[in-house]
């Protein structure tokens, strides 16, 4: 199992993502944004950070990089793609995931541990999924533009299709996200994006290892 972790100018969490992939028992390598070839990766992480300085809108310019063209083709062919924070924003801008991420409603950069409730269709991901609906994961969130938003009709549709993967636990929504949504998947289930950072929750020394399950679940998420 080989993970590819995309690295844009301005990415800052790609090393932690590599580390998380390796702790999950897999190999991992970086994919520079100018590479058009994913190097045989079996799954891809689009990591957190501030790709291309987040100029214009977060994720708007990264979308046009050669590596993201390759990731879009990989996702369309059923390959597992995990977008974290800025990576979630990039996947929404690319159209691989529904909705958009807006400025936090309180205008503050949030940096805190949050409880996430797993929701949606996790069991359909196969035997490798270690995440069950209703399970709570303790994961750090750190972002200024994490308010998930989509038109009401789109929210109804993604809820009905089980595409809401994570919600903030009651009272812990840090940014005004619609319906407490912290992460969504595509209809096929092979693309997942979330604002909190599972790659920062992989070592008991820093308080939680709940993030490992997200990597292990996505490793088996080929559609």
């Amino acid at each position, binding site marked *: 199992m080989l993970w590819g972790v995309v690295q844009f100018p301005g990415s800052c969490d790609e090393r932690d993502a590599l580390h998380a992939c390796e702790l999950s028992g897999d190999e991992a390598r970086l994919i520079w944004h100018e590479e058009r070839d994913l190097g045989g990766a079996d799954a891809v992480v689009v990591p957190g950070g501030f790709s291309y300085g987040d100029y214009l809108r977060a994720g708007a310019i990264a979308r046009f990089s050669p590596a993201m063209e390759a990731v879009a083709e990989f996702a369309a062919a059923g390959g597992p793609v995990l977008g974290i924070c800025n990576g979630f924003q990039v996947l929404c801008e690319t159209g691989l995931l529904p*909705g*958009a991420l*807006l400025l936090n*409603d*309180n205008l503050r950069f949030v940096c805190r541990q949050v409880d996430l409730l797993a929701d949606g269709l996790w069991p359909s991901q196969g035997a490798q999924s270690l995440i069950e609906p209703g399970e709570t994961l303790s994961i750090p969130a750190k972002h200024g533009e994490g308010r998930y938003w989509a038109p009401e009709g789109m929210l109804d549709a993604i809820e009905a299709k089980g595409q809401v993967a994570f919600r903030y636990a009651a009272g812990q929504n840090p940014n005004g996200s619609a319906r407490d949504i912290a992460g969504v998947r595509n209809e096929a289930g092979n693309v997942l994006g979330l604002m909190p950072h599972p790659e920062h929750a992989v070592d008991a020394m820093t308080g939680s290892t709940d993030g490992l399950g997200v990597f292990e679940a996505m490793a088996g998420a080929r559609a």
Partner: protein
Amino acid sequence: MKARVLIRPKEGILDPQGKAVERALPALGFEGIEHVRVGRVVELEAEDPAKLPELCEKLLANPLIEDFEIESIDGA
């Protein structure tokens, strides 16, 4: 053509920047200002203005969350 593109959050989407500006105004003595919304302006020169709407939809604005208007500023 010289053009100016105005991009603003769609009606109905909470604009916290606009709210923050609105809340600051009474303290400065500006009463009666409501519904402040903050967007952005992009000025550019285009050889082929016909391409501008597509360019706006693909990059300058996110049509899910933002409206845009293109105006010519030739001679301005």
